């Protein structure tokens, strides 16, 4: 049904359906209005959804048209959630408008993702039915889907049952119908993915770059606005096409870098860019990735991508995870790799392993204006922000907790940061000096530092960095201090739990070997980005974006040699290392490639 919806949307901008049950996916609305399509948590809650991210001001209505096949009285459910249940009004409230009538039920008030009953309405199949989402608060109300049924049977809520129900309703075949074939499929369009695609394309590979956002750059994008740090190493020419100048974090100037990055990547004829496409599965056979399946985040359209080689630049290591690659998460015990640093003891490397990792940030900022600016009361934010009062965020605004997975609980982590931000700004507004201050920008995307790390032939550790260990295949070079974060609340419970501290180890220049950039057990899988093969403390230095960009470029070149000799990534190290190193050296001075427009 979802597919029907997409096809109909594309052809007629309306929806023809042939059953008494109609499921309307919110992300497929004709006009999202001021609501944003949020696909960050698809793996956990089942679908992209519409998010009323108005920073305290109700956003414009989202709207769509649906053609029903049968007239009658329909019950309506909306899949939604109250993202801060408690003894206060739900922050993200909205209503549903069907044709001219706004239904009475206030939505966004149930805890946990699930179906909230909205009411009953009469539908006439002769007329197009007009649906709108009416935001009431501007504080991140969320709508995943709307379900109309002539029977009053609530659809399932549990994730497993819901997925099966959706699939049944949509009558989708298991595999996407369209197959796209490439030399190299890169998943994730952060700096690492962009660099991998460019390097591969420059060597003549036909590359697919799949990215779930409308713009490239990941954490460096104008959507998240973390500036790039690290050095260019061997790949200055490529990285300068996609990096940022060293603006302060959160700067609006990131828009200029965005334009440069997008234009540069799009200028390559042999990179097929799939923006707003999110990979949702990787199928492997005999320890080799055969396909990556991806879905368009707005329309739900699906494609299958095949290639002899894949790059996992998803950050969370999803391709490796789905394909069965070995991975790690959390902090190893201090003895695992001997990463002891007396000065910071347990904060640096624990005696016993645990699930602690560096947290995620949500950047934000405000500006002074010429006139008084109001901001609503946010009682639901206060338990997080307490009396913290700020008018701008920085990298220290970071949240992690051992019981929260940076992957599985990312929505809760993002929401915690939103409460921290709105609460802190609300507190700051109580100060007369901030009377004219306006909340200008809050990212709704969670900017992650650390999550799943795929295991390669070499696991890069703190000691590799500390000793500046030289490797025969040390293709990535970095000078940046090893920089591991922890939540300050661990030392003082009076601190807000969303503020972190950095521990720096200033050592010599260090090298990351090529062997840390391909999977140990999935033979045709490269990884570049924070999901490369390293320990928790080993990630501290190279996790920043120019370093991960170097990784991307390094695997892009390796893939071209893999194709040339029809070998797997490991064999580049065992059989073609000198040629690989020569290629990296040579590309520094490459003239304009013939493949480029």
């Amino acid at each position, binding site marked *: 049904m979802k597919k029907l919806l997409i096809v109909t949307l594309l052809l007629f901008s309306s929806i023809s359906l042939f059953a008494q049950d109609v499921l309307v996916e919110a992300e497929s609305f004709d006009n999202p209005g001021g609501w944003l399509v949020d696909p960050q948590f698809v793996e956990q809650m089942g679908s992209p959804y519409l998010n009323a991210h108005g920073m305290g001001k109700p956003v414009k209505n989202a709207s769509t048209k649906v053609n029903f096949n049968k007239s009658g009285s329909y019950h309506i459910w909306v899949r939604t959630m*109250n993202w*801060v*249940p*408690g*003894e206060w009004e739900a922050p993200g409230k909205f209503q549903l408008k069907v044709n001219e009538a706004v239904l009475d039920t206030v939505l966004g008030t*149930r*805890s*946990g993702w*699930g179906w909230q009953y909205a009411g009953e309405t009469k539908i006439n199949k002769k007329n197009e039915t007009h649906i709108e989402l009416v935001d009431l608060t501007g504080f991140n109300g969320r709508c995943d889907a709307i379900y109309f049924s002539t029977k009053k049977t609530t659809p399932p*809520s*549990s994730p497993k049952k819901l997925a099966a129900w959706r699939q049944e309703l949509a009558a989708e075949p298991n595999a996407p119908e369209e197959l796209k074939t490439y030399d190299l499929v890169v998943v994730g369009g952060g700096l690492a993915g962009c660099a991998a695609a460019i390097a591969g394309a420059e060597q003549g590979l036909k590359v697919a770059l799949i990215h779930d956002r409308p713009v490239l750059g990941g954490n460096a994008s104008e959507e998240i606005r973390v500036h790039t740090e690290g050095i260019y190493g061997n790949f200055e020419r490529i990285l300068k096409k996609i990096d940022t100048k060293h*603006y*302060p*974090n*959160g*700067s*609006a*100037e990131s*828009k*200029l870098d965005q334009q440069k990055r997008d234009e540069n990547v799009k200028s390559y004829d042999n990179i097929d860019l799939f923006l707003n496409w999110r990979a949702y599965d990787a199928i492997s056979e005999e320890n080799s990735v055969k396909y990556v399946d991806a879905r368009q985040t707005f329309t739900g359209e699906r494609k299958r991508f095949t290639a002899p080689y894949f790059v996992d630049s998803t950050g969370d290591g999803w391709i490796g995870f789905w394909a069965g690659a070995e991975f790690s998460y959390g902090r190893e015990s201090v003895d695992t790799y001997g990463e002891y640093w007396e*000065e*910071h*003891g*347990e*904060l640096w490397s*624990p*005696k*016993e392993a*645990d699930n*602690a990792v560096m947290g995620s940030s949500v950047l934000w*900022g*405000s*500006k*002074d204006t010429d006139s008084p600016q109001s901001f609503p009361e946010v009682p639901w934010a206060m338990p997080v922000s307490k009396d913290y009062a700020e*008018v*701008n965020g*920085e*990298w*220290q605004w970071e949240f992690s*907790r*051992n*019981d*929260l997975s940076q992957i599985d*609980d990312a929505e*809760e982590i993002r929401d915690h940061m939103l409460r921290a931000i709105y609460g802190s700004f609300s507190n700051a507004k109580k100060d007369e000096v901030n009377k004219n201050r306006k909340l*200008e*920008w809050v990212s709704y995307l969670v900017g992650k530092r650390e999550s799943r790390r795929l295991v390669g032939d070499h696991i890069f550790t703190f000691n590799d960095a500390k000793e500046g260990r030289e490797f025969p295949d040390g293709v990535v070079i970095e000078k940046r*201090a090893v920089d591991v974060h922890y939540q300050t*609340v*661990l*030392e*003082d*419970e009076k601190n807000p739990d969303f503020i972190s*501290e*950095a*521990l*720096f180890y*200033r050592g010599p220049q260090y090298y990351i070997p090529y062997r840390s950039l391909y999977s140990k057990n999935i033979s045709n899988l490269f990884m570049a980005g924070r999901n490369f093969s390293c320990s928790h403390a080993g990630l501290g230095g190279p996790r920043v974006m120019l370093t991960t960009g170097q990784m991307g470029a390094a695997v892009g070149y390796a893939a071209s040699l893999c194709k040339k000799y029809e070998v797997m990534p490991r064999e580049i190290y065992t059989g073609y290392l000198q040629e690989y190193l020569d290629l990296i050296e040579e590309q520094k001075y490459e003239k304009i490639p013939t493949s480029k427009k």
Partner: protein
Amino acid sequence: MRRLALGILLLLTHLCEAQFGSAVSFPNSSEKTVLDKSPEFFVLSWKQGTILNRSETPMEIVVDSVGAQKVNIFQDNSDAPVLYSSNIITPVCADGDCRLMHITLYWTLLGDYAGFDRSSEEPLTKHDHDEFLFSDYWKLHELLKDHNSILKRRAIDELVTKPKPSTIEGVDALSGATIKEVKESVVSGALYSCYVAWHLVHGDIKDQIKAFTVAQQTEGMLVRMLNNENINYQMYALENLTKNQYDTNFSRISKLFKSGIPLVRSFIIKNLAESFSKEPNKMQPFWDALPYIDINTRSLLLQHIDTASEATVTSISGQLSVLTKNQIRDFLSHLENKSQISSEILKNLRNFAGSNKEKNSYLVVQFLEDNS
């Protein structure tokens, strides 16, 4: 820029040496051989009536252009070491203006900053020759307490660089984090004094002091550390006590589990629980602390749920409000693996599931649906 600043600093230091000569001694009035009251700015607790006597150590701090300055140890009446101290005179030079800074610094037994005494005769001064106010000394104290200060990882010239202003529309007032952090950390107009003092306190002497202490370590010293309020003492003791010593000091450890900082608590539960978990009466104080401890530690404690008594499990089923979503999931998963769930636990679960104020009640609703 950095090289230029360093050059100027070295030149000034050289000039200072020419100006002041070498090895200036601290004024006699400040040379304390007995401490009968706490240093004026101090991080450790001081029991009234304590008298500490000074002894010499072989350690010293070498200050450019002034020379070696002794590090002494203060011991209590049973000769147990308590504090290290040094009377420091050091030049502070900024923008061509050099002066001497007089300060008595104290370190803990582990080489951490313990406090300082100001010199009544030679107060600290700021850039414009104003003497430090009490609030300035207090801010210096706060700075020195921060072993991870930004002063550690930045050269002095990097601390005075101004951020580039934003040039296009959008968010403003994004002052560079560095400058903001420095401004908040140091005494206004006394960046150089703060910088010099911080690096004296947290320089090489830290490791030397700790090594000196470790060489004299005794069980008594570890037990005193365990009972001290200083976090680093507690952690050091917990890391170094033997298994038998854990048992002997169980009462203090279980108290620390409830009252300590999260880092200490999590160390206890991760590293010592094995010693206690087989004896329910010993684990009981830990389970009793469940509602009072931080979320991370609570998660670590719940990893021991399989060894908890039925009474403890029942008690937790009545405290689901204090658990996070994933902790409730873990707890329910434990119940799911049990052959039978008692009626009292089921009653508690139903109460929780029926509450419309509990944001995680839906988890229990689902659990009851699946297991009824």
